[in-house]
């Protein structure tokens, strides 16, 4: 199962390396990672999509280990929270002049845009959820995809931010452990 985490980190040299090194060392598989600036110059924001074969237990491990990094300010597991997620792709498709109209109409279904036209190819820019981009790619594939690049997923929760530093294990973080002791604790 894939989980999505947002991490706010200090904007300092080497921080990306620390995060990446942590995932390698703890044997977690990053599906996608997007890093960029935020409204505060001293803070960068990472969106990570991570494969968690053991579900919530892995998600807890990732969250807790990220907190161990001194430069990590806040971690949010947004997998279960209402949020907006976006990915962007640039897709270069083979398109002789007589095929351009077809590409154009496919693109418009996905509200994608043609951003470059060459003699026998065009570049399509598409933004949206993972599924939407996958759909666009599948439709364009028969025409011949020459090159593709994707930004990786970025995410933002809807409404007001749930707040900062919910230390895993200290407060209810929505993870579902099957508590053997549930009957006593409930």
């Amino acid at each position, binding site marked *: 199962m894939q989980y999505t985490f947002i991490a706010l*980190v200090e904007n300092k040299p080497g921080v990306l390396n620390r995060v990446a090194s942590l995932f390698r060392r703890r044997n977690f598989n990053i599906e996608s990672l997007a890093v960029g600036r935020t409204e505060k110059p001293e803070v960068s924001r990472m969106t990570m999509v991570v494969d968690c074969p053991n579900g919530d237990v892995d998600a807890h*491990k990732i969250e807790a280990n990220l907190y161990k990094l*001194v430069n990590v300010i*806040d971690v949010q597991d947004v997998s279960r929270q209402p949020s907006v997620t976006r990915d962007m792709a640039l897709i270069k498709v083979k398109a002789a002049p007589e095929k351009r109209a077809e590409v154009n109409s496919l693109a418009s279904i996905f509200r994608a845009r043609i951003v470059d036209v060459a003699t026998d190819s065009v570049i399509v820019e598409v933004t949206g959820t993972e599924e939407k981009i996958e759909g666009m790619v599948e439709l364009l594939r028969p025409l011949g995809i020459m090159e593709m690049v994707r930004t990786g997923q970025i995410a933002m929760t809807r409404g007001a931010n749930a707040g900062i530093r919910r230390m*895993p*294990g*200290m407060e209810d973080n929505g993870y579902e452990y099957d508590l053997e002791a549930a009957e*006593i604790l409930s």
Partner: protein
Amino acid sequence: MKKTGAEIMWECLVREGVEVVFGYPGGANMPIYDAMLNYPIHHVLVRHEQGGAHMADGYARASGRVGVAMGTSGPGATNLVTGIATAMMDSSPVVFITGQVAAHLIGGDAFQEIDVTGITLPITKHNYLVTRADEIAEVVREAFYIARSGRPGPVLIDICKNAQIEQTEFIYPEEVKLLGYQPPARAPQADLEKAVRLIEKAKRPVILCGHGVIVSGAEEALLHFATKTQTPVASTLLGLGAFPASHPLALGMMGMHGEAHTNLAIQNSDLILAFGMRFDDRVTGNLKTYAPKARKIHVEIDPSEVHKNVHVDLPLVGDLKNVVSDLVPMVDEYDHDEWLNEINGWKYEADERSIMNWPEDGKLYVAHLIHDLWKATGGGAIITTDVGQHQMWTAQYYALEKPNRWITSGGSGTMGFGLPSAIGAWFANKDQEIWAIAGDGGFQMTAAELTTAVQEGANVKVAIMNNNFLGMVRQWQEFFFEKRYSAVNMVSPDFVKLADAHGVPARRVTTREEVDEAIQWARSIAGPVVLEFRVEKEDAVYPMVPAGASLDQMLRRPVKQ
């Protein structure tokens, strides 16, 4: 006032209360060594940077304060690596300071340039590459704070040579401001109440006392909690000393070479209270069969340890001393007589097999002589060990009453740790009797530090358990590889002559009758002494839970007729 980066570094160390640093100079840290002459900090010139790292670690563990070790760039720094990893695995607060080539040379494979922050990224709690003098004050301040707070650990500062030389205004940061670093302090009240309810229901509870108890200074709270609830206390290797061994509720060490009754108590318990320990594979055995009937409460400051190896029912994330102190007034008094009697029955059986009750057979057993050492020193010495059989026997038979006197490499199992960590411990506690227990193999890994002990007049007694084997590996080959001995036979130098060449008084002991007198002789000398004990060659550490076996599946010492 303007100062050089090197001066600022020393200035900050003085303000952190550093009295001693263990190090080795070289090209990339010469400005630091030059500036050092003007500051009231004692420098110990070690013989190998690994030794320096272990000394700083031993100092930290004996004093509860931050240790400091230094090296030059490149090979100096890589020689520190084993010591850094050792400190990391045992959560020991040590600040490592390495020299680095000048900032403008970085990335160009300059002479003795090695990517030290890269290498040490996974084996430090945090690390820094400092390229400018004006970063130093803040970085040093942060490094000490990070090393000692929360779950302690090593922090490395790699300082470029230009940053050591450049002059800048010295402004000491009064406060440490770290956006993303806030160690948890207390567990939420609601969780404490849940814990109380679990404790209420328990008929067969057991406390697993880990290193965290000592690190957070929670010994007193633990004692109150255990006596009030009449809960027996089993210790991890590093938790030994946190709970007095002579206390009726003390179960001694758990795990692979833990006592039989201790492991049986854990396996048969219905509630585990894990205090500052991390369910290492050496203490759990097979996880699938581990304490199957027990509910588990995990008191731990590092949330990433929660559910890591063992799934627990209730994590209490916070500083252990706070959490346990908060619990004490909340819990009721219990007696658990039935449960304690059952454990005592297992203990009685275990005692019957103990090597302590063997009839004298003229052989010299490590277990016996550790017991003799315990008696001779009144159980009050600081004990450091190397890694191997002797380490386990020392853990089993040097019964500890107090914390911070037991210094051993647990998580990393680093051979060569014993002698240097003892030297470090001496700097922390010069009035205390200190014994380093080592195997013939491990002693030779850092034996060069004997000269350091002489140069510093360090009053450490070194006891070498010479069995002519890499004993622990030999034991595994005996048990699990059909006695096919491979690369475990060791020819050693004449240890007495070796000590003599260092100017260290030394004796060889071959029988049990000589043991006590030799120990007393060593104790009567101020300064380092070496005792070589020619011990039984093919003795094995019992009980033993084979790796991956269930915790109650112990190989037991054969009963001697």
